[in-house]
């Protein structure tokens, strides 16, 4: 049973004493400001971002708090697993050499840890697109029993019980009563600033510092544009779609996008991942089944399996897959290696502030 009480308003006479306080915009110096390491800057070769920080302006304090939370195992059920446990900066925030994610109590997840970069441009998150907003994305990893295995309420209670965190929230947001919105906004300030756009490829397309490609890399780029870029589109290297790329002919174990949409036409479809830093993010695919880029290309050339939802781009002219010679694969890999952004993987802003190291 629930009750509604209607409370009428009383006649109120409000004497509003309005005082207009003039804003004295005293002149500041006109010298060029230092580049702000905590400003969100969209690279020139990127489309418009999806997350624009309107409700969550980035500050040094907010970003640093988000970084601390990202690397804090206390967000997990047994205080042992942080976001950074699987998303490791050295490997472009992927989980190097782990085909499936490892969670609390050595539990195995059922999908490969995705790399993190340029998240402010992503409309949806996870292999099946189950999260629709940058801020809500960490909730899944925190509450998933095979990942961090904790309840959101316990996380908020733990944080409120730590004076150090309360002080940091006060510095970042002006409140020291921590709620989930403030926690996730702090995390979004950190994850949203994980911008990777300083690979050799970026400097080549932006014509910076006379960066040139080798002959193989140039040919690889041409092959990529002809064979891969319809899905791995734009300089984000994804069109944000979900596709069945023929890893299997039966998807009973993991139906992918169908879990989210309840649409059988989405069975076996998974997000087209960005290829940023792809040379560092092995193993590949939603289930981590390929350990090298060559095995990935072998799959597209000769391993595609048919099923009713197979992407039409992988079933053309009466054959499955994308025809590629061994030489073409070598050149494609040369190109894919140009997407590695060493500055991003070594950026001190993104390092673990607790263990102060990105080593294994």
């Amino acid at each position, binding site marked *: *049973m*629930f*009750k*509604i*009480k*209607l*409370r*009428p*308003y*009383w*006649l109120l006479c409000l004497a509003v004493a309005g005082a207009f306080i003039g804003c004295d915009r005293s002149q500041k110096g006109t010298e060029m400001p230092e580049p702000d390491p905590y400003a969100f800057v969209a690279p020139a070769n990127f489309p418009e971002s999806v997350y624009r920080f309107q*409700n969550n302006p980035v500050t040094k304090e907010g970003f640093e708090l988000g970084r601390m939370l990202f690397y804090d195992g206390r967000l997990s059920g047994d205080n042992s697993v942080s976001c950074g446990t699987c998303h490791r900066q050295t490997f472009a925030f992927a989980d190097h050499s782990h085909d499936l994610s490892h969670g609390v109590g050595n539990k195995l997840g059922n999908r490969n840890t995705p790399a993190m970069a340029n998240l402010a441009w992503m409309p949806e998150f996870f292999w099946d697109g*189950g*999260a*629709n*907003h*940058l*801020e*809500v994305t960490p*909730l*899944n990893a*925190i*509450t*998933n029993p095979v990942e961090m295995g904790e*309840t*959101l*309420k316990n996380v*908020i209670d733990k944080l409120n019980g730590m004076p150090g965190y309360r002080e940091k929230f006060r510095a970042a947001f002006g409140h020291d009563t921590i*709620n*989930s*919105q403030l926690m*996730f*906004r702090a995390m*979004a300030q950190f994850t949203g600033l994980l911008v990777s756009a300083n690979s050799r490829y970026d400097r080549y397309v932006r014509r910076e510092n006379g960066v040139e490609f080798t002959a193989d890399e140039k040919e690889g780029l041409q092959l990529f544009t002809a064979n891969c870029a319809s899905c791995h589109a734009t300089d984000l290297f994804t069109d944000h779609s979900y596709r069945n790329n023929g890893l299997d002919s039966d998807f009973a174990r993991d139906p992918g996008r169908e*879990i*989210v949409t*309840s649409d059988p036409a989405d069975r076996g479809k998974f997000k087209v991942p960005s290829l940023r830093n792809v040379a560092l993010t092995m193993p590949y695919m939603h289930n981590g089944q390929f350990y090298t880029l060559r095995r990935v290309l072998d799959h597209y050339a000769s391993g595609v399996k048919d099923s009713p939802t197979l992407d039409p781009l992988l079933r053309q002219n009466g054959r499955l897959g994308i025809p590629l010679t061994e030489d073409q694969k070598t050149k494609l890999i040369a190109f894919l290696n140009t997407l590695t952004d060493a500055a991003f993987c070594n950026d001190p802003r993104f390092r673990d502030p607790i263990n102060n190291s990105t080593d294994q």
Partner: protein
Amino acid sequence: MHTRTYTNALRQPYTVSHFMYHVRNFTLLKEDGSVYKVPESYFLIDHEKPSSAFITLPDIPAGDYTGVSFIIGVDSTRNTPGVQTGALDPVNAMFWSWNTGYIFVRMEGNSPVSPQPNNKLLFHIGGFRGADNCIRETSPSLNGNVLQAWAGKSPEVHYKADASKLFGAPDQVNFSVLEGTAIHGGPRAVQMADNYR
């Protein structure tokens, strides 16, 4: 809650361990046909917390009201803007992390006929997109009573939220088959949402 046994439309017994739902957008109807829409406000009713089942709508224009309607479920625009506070704080465990959006009605319990482990029942009704839309408006009858909202008066309406209505009709839910024991959004949730009225 917990101990009392209810029966569904198929006369299958069950107990309730969680019963929570989101209500919003109260509209008050006057005798002359005019309406007053209460400004957007969300309430999460949790039958574990009796105080949450007492909603106060402040600043109602004075008048005699003959009807009340409200919406069960969270508006599509509130399912997409990130993390919110109050009744919509994901800490309330009415928020899906595997498919971002709110659970509008959460009913969990047990039935001896359920084939689930521990005879569990778990119904999470939500979904705001297209065919998965479980947002429903309802206008429960005031049985001819008039709500006199005048200065100095704060009329109260007592509604009975009958969890058994969730299980039929028109959509009868059979607790003795797996498909009738656990629902997480999707087409079955939409059918159950049609049972609200």
